[in-house]
């Protein structure tokens, strides 16, 4: 197939695919080393897999670009999807941090109550 205007260049597809595979491998390795919980890895894995599919499936990317009215440079859709997933991950992390902060408050309060109960006022 001849690459015309409005096609995804092969080099972009390959670079996108490599980056996605690398992301997936790094995430899996982090889980294996117990440095990342599955709960927080799933969104990253979904990001990697979606980007991998969109990178390799160039005609699909072109079709989606057509739907969205992106003319001239279909890989822009790739960047848009990547940005969307990063936003999702960040939003998810914000909720996680909020939960951790709440739990931290409860822990500090319980510790203070326990110290008072056991007469340990040194702290």
């Amino acid at each position, binding site marked *: 197939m001849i690459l015309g205007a409005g096609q995804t260049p092969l080099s972009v597809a390959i670079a996108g695919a490599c980056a996605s595979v690398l992301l997936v491998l790094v995430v899996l390795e982090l*889980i*294996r080393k117990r440095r990342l919980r599955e709960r927080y890895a799933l969104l990253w894995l979904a990001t990697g897999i979606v980007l991998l599919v969109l990178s390799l499936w160039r005609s699909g990317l072109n079709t989606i670009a057509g739907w969205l009215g992106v003319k001239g440079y279909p890989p822009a859709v790739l960047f848009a999807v990547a940005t969307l997933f990063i936003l999702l991950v960040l939003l998810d992390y914000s909720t996680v941090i909020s939960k951790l902060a*709440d739990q931290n408050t409860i822990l500090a309060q319980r510790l203070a109550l326990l110290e008072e109960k056991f007469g340990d006022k040194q702290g």
Partner: protein
Amino acid sequence: MAAELVREAPARLDSRLAALRRVALVPAYNEAGSIGGVIDEIRSADPEIEIVVVDDGSQDDTAGAAAARGARVLKLPFNLGIGGAVQTGYRYAYEGGFDLALRVDGDGQHDPSWFGVLAAPVLAGHADIAVGSRFIARKGYRSSRSRRFAIRILSWTVTVLCGGRVTDPTSGFQVTNRRAIALFAAYYPHDYPEVEATVLAAKAGLRRAEVPVEMRERSAGRSSIGAVRSVYYMVKVMLAIFVAVFRRAPEVPA
């Protein structure tokens, strides 16, 4: 084919069992309605066993109901999820120097009168972990159709990955010896943990035996896993067990 199920008379506890320091670990989340009955049943199965209820941040009075029946209560300040709650129990058992732990869910699914039967392979030294399976004798309550299907996929996967015959990888009705208590006190997976714990134990070289038991439908409360979340859990558990296979074998603390 349904195998014949023989349940030991609760009054007669194996003398080898009676000689051990043993603890019953009961994780419970919003089980105020059923926890009292579970404690009474454990006590009638084994009057001497220490009963520890881990209240996983319940909003209802699970802790109060358990304490009123004379159980020791570990009240978590917020909900850790089933894995964190169960591990709290194993930490207690490990630090308390217990030889044997019986794990019973707080919702009434597990009938503690099976204790003697369940403990038999551990007492005989054939296994470090004995798991009560619903799917060997195929009697009693065996969960909904969709959940049975999910459990079948998981048991097939775990059997392929770990070897041995695993029919009920999600069963929390377990008896563990000191070695398994030590492992689980140090490492225990997070949510929906039994499946991954099965792989973990196999990697650590612990021997697992399944014992046919009958389970019951939960007597009160709701399952921690709703219909919508099951797919999410399924994906997560599959990911967890596949990655677990590539982990280094965990060291079992002395």
